[in-house]
C-alpha cells in the first residue's frame, strides 16, 4: 500500500469532475421537487441522456451537440412521467419507478451499436495564465466547459428561486398547489416545465458520465448515481448551494475510493466500491430528522376539482 501515489491536487481536480454528474441530476431534481413533484426516474433519465449524448456525439463528432441531444433526450423521457403524473394523475412513486425501469431498457436498446467506441473528446477550457497559478490553477482552471456549466447552473437556479417572480411561482406551486391554483397559476403547466427541466439536467449529467468521465458506453453505466442525486436533494434540504456542497462531498468520496483502489489499499475493491452507497445511507439517516424544509405539496397529486 502506498498512499503517496495519491496526489491531493489531482484528487481535488478529479473530485470536481466526479461530482458533476450528480450535481446536474440533483440540481434538476431540486427544481422538480420545489415544484412539488417527486420524480424517482432520475436514474432512467440519466442513462437515457448518457446514451443519447454518446450516440449523437459519435455520429456528429461534436461533444457539445451530444450534450444538447442528451438534454433533449432526458427532457423527452421526462415528458412520459409528466404525462403519467400530471395528466392521468398516476401515483408519482410508481411512475418514477416505471420511468427508471423503462429508461434502463431503452438505453440498452439504443446503445447496442455503441459498445466499445471512443467518443470525440471535449477539450478543456483555456483559461490562459489562470491555469498556471500554483494549487488553484490545476484544481479549478483545468476542466472541460460542461463542468463550469454545472456550476453556473447551480448559481442560476439559486438566483431564480430566490430573486425572480418565476422562482416564487414555482415555490408557491410546490408549497401549496391548491392555493397556487386559486391564485390562477397553471399548476399542471408549471410542473410539466419543471419536470422537463429536471429531465434535461439529468440527461446532461448522464452524458457527462458517458462522454467525459468514463468515456465509453456500457449498459447500466450510471450505476445508481441518479438515486444518489435523489438522496442528495434531501441532504441539501432543497437548497441549491447545499446541493453543490453535497455533490462535492459525494464526488470526493467516489474519487477517493477509486484512488484507494488504485493505490492498492488492503481493503478489497468491492468494499471500497460500496462506500458511496453506504455513506449516502448514513447521511440520509443523519439528516432525515429534519423534514421541515420539504416542499409542502411534495409527492401529492393535484386535481383541480379536489
Amino acid at each position: 500500500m502506498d498512499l503517496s501515489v495519491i496526489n491531493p491536487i489531482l484528487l481535488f481536480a478529479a473530485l470536481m469532475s466526479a461530482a458533476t454528474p450528480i450535481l446536474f441530476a440533483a440540481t434538476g431534481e431540486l427544481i422538480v421537487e420545489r415544484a412539488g413533484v417527486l420524480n424517482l426516474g432520475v436514474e432512467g433519465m440519466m442513462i437515457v441522456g448518457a446514451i443519447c449524448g454518446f450516440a449523437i456525439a459519435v455520429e456528429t463528432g461534436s461533444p457539445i451537440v451530444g450534450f444538447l441531444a442528451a438534454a433533449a433526450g432526458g427532457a423527452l423521457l421526462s415528458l412520459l412521467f409528466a404525462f403519467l403524473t400530471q395528466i392521468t394523475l398516476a401515483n408519482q412513486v410508481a411512475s418514477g419507478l416505471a420511468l427508471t425501469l423503462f429508461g434502463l431498457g431503452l438505453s440498452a436498446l439504443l446503445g447496442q451499436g455503441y459498445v466499445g467506441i471512443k467518443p470525440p473528446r471535449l477539450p478543456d477550457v483555456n483559461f490562459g495564465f489562470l491555469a498556471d497559478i500554483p494549487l488553484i490553477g490545476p484544481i479549478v482552471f483545468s476542466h472541460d466547459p460542461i463542468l463550469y456549466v454545472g456550476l453556473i447552473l447551480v448559481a442560476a437556479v439559486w438566483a431564480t428561486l430566490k430573486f425572480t417572480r418565476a422562482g416564487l411561482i414555482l415555490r408557491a406551486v410546490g408549497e401549496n398547489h391548491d392555493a397556487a391554483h386559486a391564485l390562477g397559476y397553471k399548476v399542471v403547466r408549471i410542473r410539466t416545465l419543471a419536470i422537463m427541466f429536471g429531465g434535461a439536467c439529468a440527461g446532461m449529467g448522464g452524458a457527462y458520465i458517458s462522454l467525459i468521465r468514463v468515456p465509453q458506453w456500457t449498459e447500466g453505466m450510471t450505476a445508481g448515481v441518479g438515486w444518489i442525486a435523489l438522496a442528495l436533494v434531501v441532504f441539501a434540504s432543497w437548497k441549491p448551494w447545499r446541493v453543490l456542497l453535497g455533490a462535492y462531498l459525494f464526488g470526493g468520496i467516489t474519487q477517493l475510493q477509486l484512488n484507494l483502489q488504485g493505490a492498492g489499499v488492503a481493503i478489497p475493491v468491492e468494499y471500497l466500491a460500496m462506500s458511496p452507497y453506504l455513506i449516502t445511507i448514513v447521511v440520509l439517516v443523519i439528516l432525515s430528522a429534519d423534514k421541515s424544509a420539504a416542499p409542502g405539496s411534495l409527492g401529492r397529486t393535484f386535481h383541480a376539482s379536489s
Partner: protein
Amino acid sequence: MIRLEKRPQPSRTFAYLTPLLAVLATFFFGGLLFAALGKDPVASILTIFWEPLFGEFSFYYRPQLLIKGAPLVLIAIGLSLGFKAGIWNIGAEGQYIMGALFGAGVGLAFYPAESFLIFPLMVLAGGFGGWLWAMIPAVLKVKFGTNEILVSLMLVYVAEQFLASMSLGLLKNPEGFGFPGSRNLQQYDSAHNAEIIVGSGMHWGVVAALIAVIFAYVLLARHRLGFAVRVTGEAPRAARFAGVNPSRLILFCLGTSGLLAGLAGLFEVSGPAGQISIDFNVGYGFTAIIVAFLGRLHPIGIVLAGLLMALTYIGGDIAQSQLGLPAAAIQVFQGMLLFFLLALDMFTNYRLHFGRTEAA
C-alpha cells in the same frame, strides 16, 4: 373540452379491465417497437407469447414458466403488502441476493456432508438473509424516519458488491480452477433444490410461492393485520384512529417482503441457477415491481401477472435466438407495460367528461 371528473367510488370494472387494456396496448406499441427494429411485429409477438405455450417445443418451455414465475410471484407478493400500505421497498433485488448468499453459504459450509436437514436449514438462512437486509431500511425508517425508498435501493448496490466479493472470495469454489463462482449446488444432493416432479419445473420455490399467495390472500381478506395494511394505504388518518401502529406495520411489511425475496434468492441459487456467481441476479427484484402493480397488488392477480412476465422472459429468449430480437427490447416491453397500466389506471378513479367547462 375534455375534463376529468373524480368518481365517487373507484370503478370496479376498470380495476379489472385496466391490466387487460394495458397488456393490449403494450402488444400494439411493442409491435410497433419490434417493427421499428426491423422485425415482423406479428411474428415477434407470437414468438414471445404463443411459442412457449403452444409451439413445437412447448414441452420444454412450459416448465420454465414455473421456474421463472416462482421468484417473481414470491417477491411481488411481499412487495404488494408494502405497496398497499404506502411502504415502498424497491430493494428486493438486494434482498434476493442476500437470501441467496446466506442460504448458499449455509449449504456450502456443510459440504460435503449429506443430511436431509441441510436444505431446510438453507431455506431458513435464505429467508433470514433477505429479512435482515430489509430490516435495515425498516429500522432506519422507524427509528429515524429515513426514506425507505432510497435506503432499500442503495442496499441493492451494496449487495451486488457483496455478491462479487463473495463469489471471488469466501464462497469461491476451491476446485473451480480459479474461475469466480461457488461450487454448483445442483451437484450437491443435500443442498439441491431439485424438481419435485421431474420435468414439471415444480421445485420448492414454486411451492413456497403458492403458500405465500394463499397466506397473503387470507391475511388481506380475513386477518386484522391485512386490514391494517389496507386501511393505512387508503386512509392513513383513519388507520391511526383504528389503532394501527405505523412502526410495527413498517417492520412487518418490509420484513415480510425481505423474507420472501430472500427465499426467492435461495430457491434460485440452489435450483435453476445452481451457484453463486458475479452475475447471479438478473433483475427479478425489479421486474417483481411491475408484477405487483400489474397484479393490482392482489394475490391472485400477482400470480397471473407473474406468469405473464415469466412468459416475456422465456419468449424473449426464444425471440432473441430465432429472430435476433435484442434482449433489451424485452426490457423496454416490460417497462412499457407498467407505463400503460399506470396511465390507464386513471379510468379507475376518474371518468372523462366531454363538453364545455362550466365556470367553477
